[in-house]
């Protein structure tokens, strides 16, 4: 039922939004069920019926008016046609990080919505997926995906950056075929001009 309408609180009451493309039949059914189950839902507040996106015949509107009378002690009932405000994406929070204190071996996989710090190696066949940055205090030889949620500001850093594949946001890079010096050299990969760049640190 909840899929047919949703509620949105405003300063002096509650807006009842109907989902785009709902048929009058389903609206009728959902509202009559809601009035039966939660008749006190709008007690003391204004109810705004948001008809945006709906086309109702005169009789259907009458029917709907009849139905919403089922709510007890509603302050005032309005019909409106306002744009449904999309909930703004909350600012992604990168402050928390998970710390993995061991070597990730082939077949092991770490997935976290924020930053991932690995103290140990990431071996070939292992996978790290992070919404934020990935930092490896060791050799990175597996597959990593930083900014998996789409963040292009994410970066990958390792004491030895030699991944099977390195993804940041929606970009993919792989290590050059001849990059196999076993010397440790800390490097960092990031996105610049829609390209994955690698620099020594």
């Amino acid at each position, binding site marked *: 039922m909840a899929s047919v309408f949703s509620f949105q609180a405003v300063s002096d009451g509650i807006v009842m939004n109907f989902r785009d493309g709902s048929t009058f039949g389903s609206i009728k059914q959902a509202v009559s069920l809601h009035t039966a189950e939660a008749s006190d839902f709008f007690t003391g507040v204004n109810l705004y019926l948001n008809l945006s996106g709906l086309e109702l015949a005169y009789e259907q509107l009458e029917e709907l008016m009849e139905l919403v009378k089922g709510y007890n002690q509603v302050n005032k009932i309005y019909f409106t046609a306002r744009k449904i405000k999309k909930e703004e994406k909350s600012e992604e929070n990168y402050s928390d990080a998970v710390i993995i204190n061991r070597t990730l071996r*082939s*077949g*092991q996989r770490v997935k976290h919505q924020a930053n991932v710090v690995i103290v140990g190696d990431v071996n*070939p*066949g292992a996978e790290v997926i992070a919404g934020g940055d990935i930092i490896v205090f060791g050799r990175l030889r597996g597959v990593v995906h930083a900014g998996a949620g789409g963040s292009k500001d994410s970066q990958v850093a390792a004491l030895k950056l030699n991944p099977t594949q390195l993804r940041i946001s929606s970009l993919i890079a792989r290590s050059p075929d001849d990059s196999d010096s076993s010397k440790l050299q800390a490097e960092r990969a990031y996105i610049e001009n829609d390209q994955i760049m690698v620099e020594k640190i």
Partner: protein
Amino acid sequence: MAGKTIVITSGKGGVGKTTSSANIGTALAMQGNKVCLIDADIGLRNLDVVMGLENRIVYDIVDVVENNCRLEQAMIRDKRYDGLYLLPAAQTRDKTSVTPFQMKELVDELKEEMDYVVVDSPAGIEQGFKNAIAGADRAIIVTTPEISAVRDADRIIGLLEAEGLRDPEVIINRIRADMVERGDMMGIDDMIEILAIDLIGIVPEDEGIVVSTNKGEPIALNDKAKAGQAYRNIARRIMGEDLPMMPLEKDNFITRFKKLVGLS
């Protein structure tokens, strides 16, 4: 006195798990230990063939867990060493015929009698592998100097850790000094760098293995074979001795000639 259970595993097939199990078991028995080898590769049993005991099988591991026979009835005594036994796998059944729980019970019972129980694991990471590692106190991973084998070994180490089997050791099998020197084969250091576990032995590539496997005589019995020496050393390291690794010998004309003379 309760003994130790050692599982020999690898992930990848064909790297020498069965050969290593047979030789480690034999070499441990040569040192005077009471040893039972268990073939956990149900449906594809091989250990009995490598040990040369195939024609003595009456009961097998599935008969034991299904209570068709007593444990002692299924254990085959080795023809060379009194303290060496083999518990063969069933050939006409599959891996699901035994559960890890049953396996653990079986191994725990055997441990009471033995100094070492050596379990030969099947390839793969499915039920057969899970059965093999159930009840193990110690794991030895066999790998060869190939990327695929090392990758699988790495995966196995992770799975063993997840099952609480910490600090496994690795045997590097079939290494060829000449190829390593030319840079055509992964070196020992490269492999240990990836796997980051302790090395318990290096077994050089040896044609004698094929011969000994076909004859059903583990190469550890052969005094002259390098591979046999390597397995005897591994057995002593398992018993806690601190032996240095055998230096790798280049397989050049002279050594090949020496071997030929030595073997013939």
